[in-house]
C-alpha cells in the first residue's frame, strides 16, 4: 500500500481508523476459512460517511475494497486479494432503532446477530436467522451471505428478514434498497443485494424484521440404527405436512465427539440422531410433536427423548451448536463443507460422503440441517501430516460433485466466495454466469467491490490464485 493511499485514508476518516501494522494485516488476510490473501490496509469506519470517504479514496486510486464484519465466513468471501482495502465494520455496531409495534429494527452492519436477539428479547421478539456462529457473526455478514441456521427451516433465510439496506456503492453514492414500506417499487434490488457477498457495495444500515417468540416449544431427540432410517423420517415428517422449527441430524462419530465434550447423555451407539424442534401455538406444537414421535417410531426410532424443561432443551441444543468445538478433541484441524441435496437423496449422498472419506483415508463427521437437505460434512485432520491437505482437497471436490450430481447445489448457507468459485460451472451455464455478472456490473460497474469472488473469470482466475494460499474446495 503506497504512502499516498494511506495518507488519503487517514485524512478521510482520521488516523485512528486506519491500521497498517503487520499483526493486523496478517489477521485480516483471511476469514474463518483456510484461504489466506493479502490485506493492503484495514479501515474502521464509524459511520456511513466514513464508508463513503474510504470508497472515494479507493476509487481515486483504483484499489479494490473488501467489506468485513466479524470474519466468521467459511468460504473466503472476506479474504482480501492482492492488497485490497479491508473495510471492517466492527465499530459500526449500534442498534439504531427498534420499533416494537411494527416488529422491525434498524441496525448497523457490525451488530452481532445474537446481540440483536438479546436486545429485543424483553419485547418477546427475536431475529430469526441463527447461524451456528450467531454469538460472533455480524448482521452485515449475514446480509452478505444470506445466512441460514437451524431455525431457517420454518422461518426462511436472511433475505426473508431484511426489509431494507442502506448501501454505499463503488461510485461513492449512498442508496436505500427496499424500505420499511412493503412495496417500494422498481426491481427488488434489496433481494439482489442480500447474498451478494460484498460484491455489490458496502451495507451501512439494515432494516430487519423481528419475529415473535413462540408460545410453546418442544424439543426432541430421536435416535436410529441406520442413517437411512433417520433421513427417511425427515422426508416422512415433511410429507405429512409439517415444517418443524428445526430438524437437525448428527451421525455416530459426531454424537460420540459431542457427548465426550458436553455429557448430555446422547445415544453414542446410534448410527444417527435427529434433533427436532416444534414451535408455535400450544395445540399445534402438541399435535406436531405427537405426529413426529409416531412417524419416528414407524421408521425405527429406538428412543424419543423430549426435553422436559428449558435446561434440558438448552443442553440438547448445546450439543448441536457446539459440535465444532467438540471436534477439536479429535484432530487439530477441520474442514467444514456445505452443500444441499433434495431430502430424498440425503442417505445416498451421505453413503457417498463416507465412501469418499474412506478412499482418502480421512475421518468425516456429519452434523447438518437435515430438514433443508443442507449437508455439512466435516473432515477432520492434522495438517502436519504430509500430503493430508491434498487428500482433504480431493475429498471436498468429490463431495461437491456428488451433491450436484444428485440434483443439489453448491452451497446452502456459507456462500461461494473463493472456496467454490471455480465450481460454479457445475451448476450454471456460461449464459447463467454472464447474467450474474450483469447484475454485479449494474451495482458496481467499476468492479472495485470485493473482486475475484463468486464468479469464475478466466482473466481473474490466475490473479486470484496467485495471491491466495489454502484449500480450494
Amino acid at each position, binding site marked *: 500500500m503506497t504512502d499516498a493511499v494511506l495518507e488519503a485514508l487517514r485524512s478521510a476518516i482520521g488516523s485512528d481508523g486506519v491500521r497498517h501494522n503487520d499483526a493486523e494485516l496478517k489477521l485480516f488476510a483471511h476469514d474463518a476459512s483456510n484461504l489466506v490473501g493479502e490485506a493492503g490496509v484495514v479501515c474502521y469506519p464509524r459511520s456511513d460517511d466514513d464508508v463513503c470517504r474510504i470508497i472515494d479514496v479507493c476509487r481515486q486510486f483504483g484499489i479494490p475494497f473488501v467489506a468485513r464484519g466479524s470474519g466468521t465466513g467459511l468460504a473466503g468471501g472476506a479474504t482480501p486479494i492482492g492488497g485490497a482495502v479491508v473495510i471492517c465494520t466492527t465499530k459500526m455496531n449500534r442498534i439504531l432503532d427498534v420499533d416494537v409495534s411494527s416488529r422491525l429494527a434498524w441496525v448497523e452492519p457490525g451488530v452481532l446477530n445474537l446481540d440483536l436477539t438479546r436486545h429485543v428479547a424483553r419485547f418477546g421478539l427475536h431475529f430469526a436467522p441463527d447461524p451456528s456462529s450467531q454469538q460472533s457473526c455480524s448482521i452485515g455478514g449475514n446480509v452478505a451471505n444470506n445466512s441460514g441456521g437451524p431455525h431457517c427451516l420454518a422461518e426462511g433465510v436472511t433475505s426473508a428478514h431484511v426489509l431494507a439496506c442502506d448501501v454505499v456503492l463503488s461510485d461513492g*453514492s449512498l442508496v436505500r434498497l427496499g424500505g420499511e414500506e412493503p412495496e417500494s417499487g422498481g426491481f427488488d434490488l434489496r433481494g439482489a443485494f442480500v447474498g451478494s457477498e460484498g460484491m455489490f457495495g458496502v451495507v451501512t444500515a439494515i432494516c430487519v424484521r423481528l419475529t415473535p417468540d413462540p408460545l410453546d416449544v418442544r424439543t426432541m431427540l430421536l435416535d436410529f440404527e441406520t442413517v437411512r432410517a433417520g433421513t427417511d423420517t425427515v422426508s416422512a415428517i415433511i410429507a405429512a405436512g409439517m415444517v418443524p422449527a428445526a430438524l437437525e441430524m448428527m451421525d455416530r462419530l459426531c454424537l460420540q465427539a459431542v457427548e465426550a465434550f458436553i455429557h448430555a447423555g446422547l445415544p453414542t451407539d446410534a448410527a444417527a440422531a435427529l434433533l427436532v424442534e416444534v414451535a408455535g401455538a400450544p395445540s399445534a406444537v402438541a399435535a406436531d410433536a405427537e405426529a413426529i414421535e409416531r412417524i419416528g417410531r414407524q421408521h425405527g426410532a429406538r428412543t424419543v427423548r423430549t426435553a422436559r424443561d428449558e435446561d434440558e432443551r438448552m443442553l440438547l441444543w448445546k450439543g448441536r451448536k457446539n459440535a465444532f468445538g467438540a471436534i477439536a478433541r479429535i484432530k487439530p484441524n477441520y474442514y467444514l463443507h456445505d452443500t444441499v441435496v433434495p431430502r430424498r437423496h440425503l442417505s445416498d449422498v451421505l453413503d457417498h460422503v463416507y465412501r469418499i472419506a474412506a478412499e482418502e483415508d480421512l475421518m468425516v463427521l456429519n452434523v447438518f440441517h437435515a430438514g433443508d437437505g443442507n449437508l455439512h460434512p466435516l473432515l477432520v485432520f492434522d495438517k502436519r501430516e504430509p500430503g493430508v491437505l491434498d487428500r482433504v482437497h480431493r475429498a471436498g471436490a468429490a463431495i461437491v460433485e456428488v451433491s450436484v450430481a444428485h440434483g443439489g447445489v453448491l452451497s446452502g448457507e456459507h456462500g461461494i466466495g473463493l472456496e467454490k468459485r471455480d465450481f460454479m460451472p457445475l451448476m450454471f451455464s456460461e449464459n447463467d454466469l454472464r447474467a450474474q455478472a450483469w447484475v454485479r456490473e*449494474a451495482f458496481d460497474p467499476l468492479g472495485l467491490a470485493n473482486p475475484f469472488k463468486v464468479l469464475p473469470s478466466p482473466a481473474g482466475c490466475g490473479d486470484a490464485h496467485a495471491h491466495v494460499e489454502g484449500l480450494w474446495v
Partner: protein
Amino acid sequence: MNRIDEFAARIGTTGEVWIRGAGSRVEPPGNLRTVEAPTGISSFEPDEMTVTCGAGTRLSDLDDVLAERGQYVNLGQLRHPHGTVGGALATGWNDHLRLGRGPVRDSVLEVHVVTGRGDVVKGGGPTVKNVSGFDLCRLMVGSHGRLGAIAEVTLRTRPLPRATRWLSVDDVDGSRITDLFAHLYRPSAVLWNGFVGWVCLEGHPSDIEAARTEMRDHGFANQESMSGPDLDTLPCRWSVAPRAVVAHVEDRSGQVIAEVGVGVVHSDEVPPRRNTDAATEAIHRRLTDSFDPERRLNPGAGDGLIR
C-alpha cells in the same frame, strides 16, 4: 428442443414482444406480437415441498394439484386468484395474507428466463435452501418481465393450514388496533378501516379458539366473518411504513382498508407517483441495458419501471 428453448425461439432476438398470460392482471397493449409461456407442472415433490411448472400454468390448476397433497404455494392468489404463475411472479403482487404467509418473492427457488437477447438464463437452484451465486430469482419477481420472460420456475410449497378463520371486531380506533395487533400471536392478516378490524387466524382449530377467547378477555369482542372485508371496491394500493399505518388511515377522508403490520393500504384514491433516486435509476438502467438492451420485452409494463 425442450419447451424452454422453444419458448426462447418464439421470443426470438428482435422486435418488441409481449409475454401473454391470462390477461387477468395486466392487459397487453394492442398491436404487439404476443408469446405465451410453457404450461404444465413438470414435477411436484410433496416430501421436498417443491413444484416445478411452466410459467403459463394457470394458478387454479397449480392450486388443485398441490391441494390434493395438502399443500399450497404463496403467489398472492387470495387477492388475484386467476391468471398464470408467470403473471403472478412478473407482477409480484401480494395478497392480504402477506403478514402470515410472507411475500410472493420468497416462493421462488429457481427460475428460467429468456432475456431480451434471446438467451435462456437460469437463476437459483432446485433445493429449498441455496446461496449459490447471486439471487436472480428475487430480481425477476416484480420485474414485469422487463429483464427476462419467465419460462419455468421451481417454487417452494407450504402445508395448507389446518384451519383458517376470519374474525371481525367492531369499534376499533387507532390505539385499539395497535393493541389488538400486539396481542395476537402471528396472525395471517390484521386489516382495519379506521372503525372495524378484521383478523385472519390460521393454524390448529384449538389454538384459534384460544386466541378468540384471549381476544375477548382483552376486550375485543369478535364475530366470525366469512372471508374478511371486500377489497374489490378499493382498487388502489398505497404502500406506507407499518409504523405510519394508523396515522395514514386516520388522515384519509376516503375509504381505506389497511394491512396492519405490513403497510399496504387499499384505497379508492390513486397514490401519488413515486420518485426514484438517481442511483437506483442508474442500477435499473444498467440492468436493463444488459438483460434487454433493445427494451423489447413487455415494453411499457410496470409503469415507470425503466426510464
